[in-house]
């Protein structure tokens, strides 16, 4: 049982939520509190339990154990049609035999709203999502983007306590996706909606969320803002899953204040403690240093860097010009890739022929 102090102010609370199927543990001890008006993403690779978690909140999947609270009420065993949630399905699940208007009005009719009110409310919602004039169309007569907006309108119109979105953008083409993402975020903030947004796309999660829940194998790896999970990953998994990163594995040589010195095959490296390294690690214990590509400065080997630690030498193998950045793959022990923002001094060099490079971390 949860004390009032933990459910207070939280629109949605998941407590020790767990779902076991015959052979797999799909969701394991997931705990989360979502504030009113907050958009929280569930982010993780395919099969990590995002959809199962979402469907437990909606009531389609019964948890093996744990509880779900919406606005301070325990809804764990409540039927889906009695819950105050609304879901946007990955395939939209629009009723093919109903018009756009009837699709959007469906939830209001089940709530026995008088029909003049339904008419105006649905009209408002269609206006809001720029679907005006399409009332009498059937779903199959709409483009993918329009179908997606109808699905959103159909969920929004019932003013749910919690809106649940299961990869709502994954069926749109890339061009439409980024725009729709911003549009969705704007709508959510404008209406003060509480929302759970499932995605496997880290960029999407970072762009749209107040907080990100990174999941792996049914468990929560880290909960935090986009900045938190990117700059201070709690686990190796988070570091690798969110953004590109270079991992230098080695052993602990010693600690100096807030930083730890590592012996690695690429030399002696120094970095701040993070995640599980919060207590001073023992000497010779295995440890990894994770470096974001944009934290790396690249220069040609003959330039004097003036640094004695955190310098790695290597040979540029691939240089990919991406406009705003140039991604370099540098061969040298374990480093995967370096990249940095323009302008790059090394550019001319790497174009002519593979050369050795010197990277300052």
């Amino acid at each position, binding site marked *: 049982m949860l004390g009032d102090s933990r459910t207070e102010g939280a629109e949605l609370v998941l407590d020790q939520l767990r779902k076991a199927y015959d052979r797999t543990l799909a969701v394991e001890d997931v705990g989360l509190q979502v504030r009113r008006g907050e958009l929280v993403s569930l982010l993780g690779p395919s099969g990590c339990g995002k959809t199962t978690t979402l469907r437990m909140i909606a*009531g389609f999947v019964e948890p093996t154990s744990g509880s779900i609270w919406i606005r301070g009420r325990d809804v764990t065993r409540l039927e889906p049609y009695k819950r105050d949630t609304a*879901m946007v399905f990955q395939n939209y699940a629009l*009723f093919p035999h109903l018009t756009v208007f009837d699709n959007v009005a469906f939830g209001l009719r089940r709530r026995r709203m008088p029909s003049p009110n339904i008419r105006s409310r649905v009209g408002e919602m269609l206006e809001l999502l720029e679907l005006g004039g399409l009332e009498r169309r059937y779903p199959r007569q709409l483009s993918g983007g329009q179908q997606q907006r109808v699905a959103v309108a159909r969920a929004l119109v019932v003013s749910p306590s919690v809106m649940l979105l299961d990869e709502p953008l994954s069926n749109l083409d890339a061009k439409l996706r980024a725009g729709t993402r911003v549009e969705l975020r704007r709508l959510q903030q404008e209406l003060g909606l509480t929302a759970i947004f499932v995605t496997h796309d880290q960029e999407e999660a970072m762009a749209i969320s107040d907080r990100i829940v990174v999941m792996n194998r049914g468990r929560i790896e880290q909960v935090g803002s986009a900045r938190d999970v990117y700059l201070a990953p709690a686990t190796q998994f988070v570091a690798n899953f969110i953004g590109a990163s270079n991992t230098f594995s080695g052993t602990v040589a010693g600690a100096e204040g807030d930083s730890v010195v590592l012996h690695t095959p690429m030399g002696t490296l120094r970095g701040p403690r993070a995640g599980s390294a919060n207590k001073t690690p023992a000497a010779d214990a295995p440890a990894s240093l994770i470096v974001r590509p944009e934290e790396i400065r690249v220069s040609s080997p003959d330039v004097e860097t003036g640094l004695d630690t955190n310098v790695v030498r290597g040979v540029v193998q691939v240089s990919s010009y991406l406009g705003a950045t140039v991604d370099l793959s540098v061969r040298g022990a374990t480093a995967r890739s370096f990249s940095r923002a323009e302008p790059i001094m090394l550019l001319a060099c790497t174009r002519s022929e593979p050369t050795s490079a010197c990277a300052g971390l």
Partner: protein
Amino acid sequence: MDRAMEPRDRAGVSPLSSFDGGQTAEVLDRSSADGHQSLPTAPPVTGDEAGGSPGTAWLTPWVLMLPALLLFFLLFVLPQARLLGYSFEPDPQSAATGLTLENYGRLFGDMHYLGILGRTLWMGLLVTVITLVLGYPMAYWLARLETRWKTVLLVLTIFPLLTSAVVRSFGWMVLLYRTGVVNQSLQRLGIVDAPLPLMYTLSGVVIALAEVLMPFMVLTLYGVIRGIDRNLEEAAMDLGAGPLSTIYRVTLPLSAGGVLAGSLLVFSLAISSFVTPSLVGGPRVQLMATAIQEQTVSLLNWQFAATLSAVLLAVVLVLALAYSRLVERSGDRSAVVPV
């Protein structure tokens, strides 16, 4: 997403129509649909790549269908034509010669035969409604079931079809007799005082036929319900519809095509069935099929038997046409049928 929504730009094709007939146009059309500029320099694709000589390629499907078409013609079209021919010939007792509508006049002018026709249609309707009402929940349950027993249950559903209708009808006779299992149980339980007349009545025929034809209804509905995206039912519940409301507003309308198809199938089979009505109904329950048999075998009046058959066939044909019209009309609107 929806190609049909975007009017295809055919303008790029027209200046090239002098090129080389259909195939060029098709190639260019494809590229313009993809949004590319269609270039007149692209050489037309010829049929040579397909292997055979281009002139006879269209023949292939017909050659492949030939045996089936031949059988269909010999075993269906010819006999049906002959049957229809018979129905316009004067019967043995008649003084008329040449082609005549006498048989049809006799059928539609005689309350006895109209009664048989009416009783048959009524029986078909009852059987259809019973199989539908009992079969729909069963089909729904089977379609939504997720266990490894599912296959076993499906085979059990089909199992009755593997036994002869004669055997099953005898089974029903054992059950339905005055001293049969059904009546004895009802009497022991004190539900009825005297045994119900079930054998040699229309009720008995309807009960037995409903069982015999049930697999057709269940299997037809099963296929259609299986094809309905579960997410749609979940979406309905998510929006506040209870289980019954969900079935009524989502599942049922989306399976209307299956309901129609299953009903048509069961109705046609019911009104033309012979074995079960003749065994369970006996001579006291006169139906079309038994009447046809009587005319053919006992009275040797093939002309009138043919007339009865033709009318039965006409009923089924009209229903099939109405069905396809309904499906076509609702096809324009994506759903199977309007709600």
